[in-house]
């Protein structure tokens, strides 16, 4: 790839002074590629964890046990009202100190890497918003619908799985899309615990090459593209799940 881009971007640098080093310098290209891969994987994992946490939380909120409901309420209150950066640092440095170490053949590494902690911390952070979104979705399902299922002898579980959840999911989609997008953007703060995602990778490049403007432009383009991709996927999902006459 480098042999195609290098002449072009070297010429660009000579004529305009714009230094897009990842497109002609092998080391910087490596950083960029690691950055893209790590960032995409991080976003994917964080979104997945946040969705699972959100669903579990929303289900737990409907539990008959007040202790469980109180725990979920506490979880939401704490994670939605404290800074995500501090949460991340707290998880990584605070709780990370108590995780066991794994023998890597002569040296030890923590069982949960900085990437792992970023997934956990950001997933839980994003999940606290998803719980509320799913709850709102569930509350938007007309009560009369579950009345009908009751009259038809559905069990509460059957009602939840076959009627409430499918409807709640559809009602939640727009809010969910915007939360997932904002969560994907928030993954950039994994920078503080040295996860080699995009912001980390490119800041490394501009520290060494002093090409802040160029790398910043790349960074903006990257995140706008990521947001666009998530919007498209969520839009497609909304379209596929859309049912004539529902939600209009």
């Amino acid at each position, binding site marked *: 790839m480098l042999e195609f881009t290098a002449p072009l971007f070297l010429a660009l640098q000579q004529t305009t002074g714009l230094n897009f080093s990842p497109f002609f310098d092998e080391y910087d290209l490596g950083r960029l590629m690691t950055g893209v891969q790590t960032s995409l994987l991080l976003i994917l994992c964080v979104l997945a964890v946040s969705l699972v946490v959100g669903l579990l939380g929303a289900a737990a909120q409907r539990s008959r046990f007040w202790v469980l409901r109180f725990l979920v309420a506490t979880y939401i209150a704490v994670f939605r009202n404290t800074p995500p950066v501090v949460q991340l640092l707290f998880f990584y440095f605070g709780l990370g100190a108590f995780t066991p170490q794994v023998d890597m053949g002569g040296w030890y590494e923590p069982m949960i890497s900085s990437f792992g902690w970023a997934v956990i911390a950001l997933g839980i952070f994003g999940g606290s918003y998803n719980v509320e979104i799913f709850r709102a979705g569930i509350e938007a399902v007309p009560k009369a619908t579950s009345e009908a299922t009751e009259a038809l002898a559905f069990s509460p579980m059957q009602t939840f799985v076959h009627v409430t959840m499918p*409807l709640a999911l559809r009602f939640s989609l727009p809010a969910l899309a915007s939360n997932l997008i904002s969560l994907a953007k928030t993954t950039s703060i994994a920078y503080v615990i040295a996860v080699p995602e995009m912001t980390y990778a490119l800041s490394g490049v501009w520290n060494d090459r002093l090409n802040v403007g160029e790398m910043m432009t790349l960074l903006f383009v990257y995140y706008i593209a990521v947001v666009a991709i998530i919007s498209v996927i969520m839009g497609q999902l909304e379209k596929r799940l859309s049912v004539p006459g529902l939600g209009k």
Partner: protein
Amino acid sequence: MTTEYTEAWAPDQPIIDIRGLHKSFGTFEVLKGIDLSVHQGEVICIIGPSGSGKSTLIRTINGLTPINKGQIFIEGQLITGPKFDRLALRRRVGMVFQQYNLFPHRTVLDNVMMAPRLVLKEPKAEVRDRARALLAKVRLADKENHYPGELSGGQQQRVAIARSLCMRPDMMLFDEVTAALDPETVKEVLTTIKDLASEGMTCVLVTHEMGFAREIADRVVFTDGGRIVESGPPAQIFGDPQDARTKQFLSQVL
């Protein structure tokens, strides 16, 4: 048809037997002692001013609304006791609501098939055949792949009736099923109910359609203030009401 359900009950006994029923919401007493029995194949219309407890009464019959005092027997079984299996009851008693309450994310055919498949775990092919037959019966065979949102209110209400019938209930409860409909679609729903009644289905209806009540009811029950004021054959209630309140009510609605 109902032998596996109860042995003590014989078809000549009341299929629904309500005794001394009381129900309060908070401090407000909605039902102040209702006694009502319905026999198999009977069509009962409950009429009365709004707030008189008609809807609450019909909802207690399949346990949607828990009661405070009294007893309800369905096919000889006490359903108001603590240990009663409500799900088993609801398989026997079909109910249709004012707001059709179809599942908007499922097609018409799926709506009809869902309960027998999930609750009764019946084989798919069998349920599908029955569902199609029922949709044909409510004259909606051509709409089976439509979604509820694409249908008119009257059509949705007929799907709701088919959906209930697909559970093969022994009796049907109709809670003001035409109240939310446009006038032009009321008739198609009433026709469906009439067909059902003429086939011998036990039906209890809460309705504001006096003409319809007069036409199909075996017995009309007038409730007011949480009590049954009077009941009797439609000719008697509409033609020669005994109680002053009945007279006044009928003079307002007729």
